[in-house]
């Protein structure tokens, strides 16, 4: 995808994600992209966000250099500690936002992280629905991102509905938890096409409609009028992202295979050195 040389696709995606966040809500940091989007949003667009430092805890943390991966490696908890009950109460009371990265998303915004093929005898067993059913039955805004927009990830119908989209899935739920937006490496998509179908909101700089169509497993709704271009990240957006993630943890999500493994280990080793310099261990244990 040809982008202007001064920014990378990960920065376009993260900035587009950041601009969706607003208000005073907890924002989960399960992935590097979600974490950086929350961090950027808090700095630039939504100062009242309460950003979590781990998937479930550490509200209003001071961001650390390894902002994102650190959470899984050391699970370091700073800020205000929460419980899992706090997290789900925040979901049920609509005080929570999360960027979900599904394996599949379909034209109605149903999402799948459970399996490819039939659930009872899957071709590929993935991980299980985790907390996505809770999000998609309670939140007033649900956010999705996919880094490799393709016929395998953006599909006509998901193999399994881990999360409830529009259409039939709404019968017993009303609007609670309905899909709001999808950001991919190609563009930004909403779900306000006919019957709640996926629609183009904007395409990233340099992305052509034909490419999007070729990489989408169904007929995308194109709103009348000219197609908008995603507003690119500003210099300030880019600076904040790069400063917050000097080890480039975010690049991991774009890689796979031996290359990813190699980078992963390198980050892991450097992370420890960084922690040594910044981790306020005494404060924590001395409480």
């Amino acid at each position: 995808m040809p982008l202007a040389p001064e920014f990378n696709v990960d920065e376009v995606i993260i900035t587009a994600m950041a601009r969706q966040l607003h208000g005073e809500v907890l924002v989960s940091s399960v992935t590097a992209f979600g974490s950086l989007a929350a961090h950027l949003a808090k700095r630039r667009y939504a100062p009242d966000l309460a950003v979590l430092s781990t998937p479930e805890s550490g509200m209003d943390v001071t961001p650390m250099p390894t902002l994102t991966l650190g959470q899984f490696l050391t699970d370091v908890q700073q800020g205000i500690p929460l419980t899992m009950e706090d997290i789900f109460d925040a979901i049920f009371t609509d005080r929570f936002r999360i960027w979900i990265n599904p394996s599949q998303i379909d034209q109605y915004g149903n999402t799948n992280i459970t399996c490819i093929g039939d659930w009872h005898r899957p071709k590929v067993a993935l991980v299980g629905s985790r907390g996505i059913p809770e999000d998609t039955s309670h939140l007033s805004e649900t956010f999705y991102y996919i880094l490799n927009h393709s016929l395998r990830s953006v599909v006509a119908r998901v193999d399994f509905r881990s999360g409830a989209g529009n259409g039939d899935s709404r019968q017993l739920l009303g609007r609670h938890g309905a899909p709001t937006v999808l950001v991919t490496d190609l563009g930004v998509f909403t779900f306000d096409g006919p019957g709640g179908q996926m629609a183009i909101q904007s395409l990233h700089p340099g992305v052509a409609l034909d490419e999007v169509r070729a990489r989408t497993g169904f007929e995308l709704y194109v709103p009348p009028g000219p197609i908008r271009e995603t507003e690119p990240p500003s210099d300030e957006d880019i600076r904040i992202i790069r400063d917050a993630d000097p080890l480039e943890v975010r690049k991991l999500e774009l890689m796979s295979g031996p290359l990813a493994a190699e980078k992963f280990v390198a980050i892991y080793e450097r992370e420890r050195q960084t922690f040594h310099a910044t981790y306020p261990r005494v404060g924590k244990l001395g409480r």
Partner: protein
Amino acid sequence: MDKRMSIDDVIDRIPDSATIAIGGSSISRKPMALVRALARSDKRDLTVIVDVGGPDVDLLLGTGRVKRIIYAFVGFEVLGLAPHFRRARQEATAEFQEWTEYTVMAGLDATIKRVPFMPTHATLGTDVLAVNPAFKEIRDPFGQEPLVAVPALAPDVALIHVNYADVQGNGVILGDGHVDVLCAKAAKATYMSCERILSSEELQRFGRDVQILRVYSKGVVEVPWGAHPTGCAPDYRTDLRHLQEYLKAAQSEDGWRRYETEFVQVDHRQYLENHGGPEELVSRLKV
């Protein structure tokens, strides 16, 4: 009451066909020393309940101890899919029941509150409701709102790992609590390993970080590095290198047999020695 016991004492108290709830979350604070002892035991037909499973579930499946898994998620987070879980799901060599993060919590909470079910909207509009025969669609008795009745989950045994404990069975958790408190309260018998045993007076100084109350625990085992290779914040981080070895080993039968010999069919002291001893682990994993 002095509740100290050995790892083997804990395993001796678990009968065949027991239902075991395991605390922690994926690659964070899993009671792995206890789980390894269970994996190398001759227990059969265990049912395992996890909210977010990882190496715990995967190892027990890998050594053939498990008949049935109740789970919201099983995976290795940033490292990818759980290999034995994936294989067992695809080949249907065990029974699987997919729940969700909150419904596992609600099922445990129902047992704690001695009610047969808890109501929720979660899983409406998803396929979890279709594949999970334990759930039941109901109508609220006041306004006929559609809901899901989540049945009580009643573990015989809970296994958890905490930072500190006293000999009476109070436990301090400094990082994310995950669902450990729910597991401990819901189980008929809770066994807890800990990094270090402190005096009850020292323990009380941790205030609200004393999350496991002694009235719920039947046994305490002092096991430094007892969560390894998962992390135990803030004491040590996840051992990604070990987990990468694990994933590689699980790719072939030979590899897995070697892994079992070196890291499962050995006691905890030998397990640590096979990593180069505690000093080596300190240098890599303490932050």
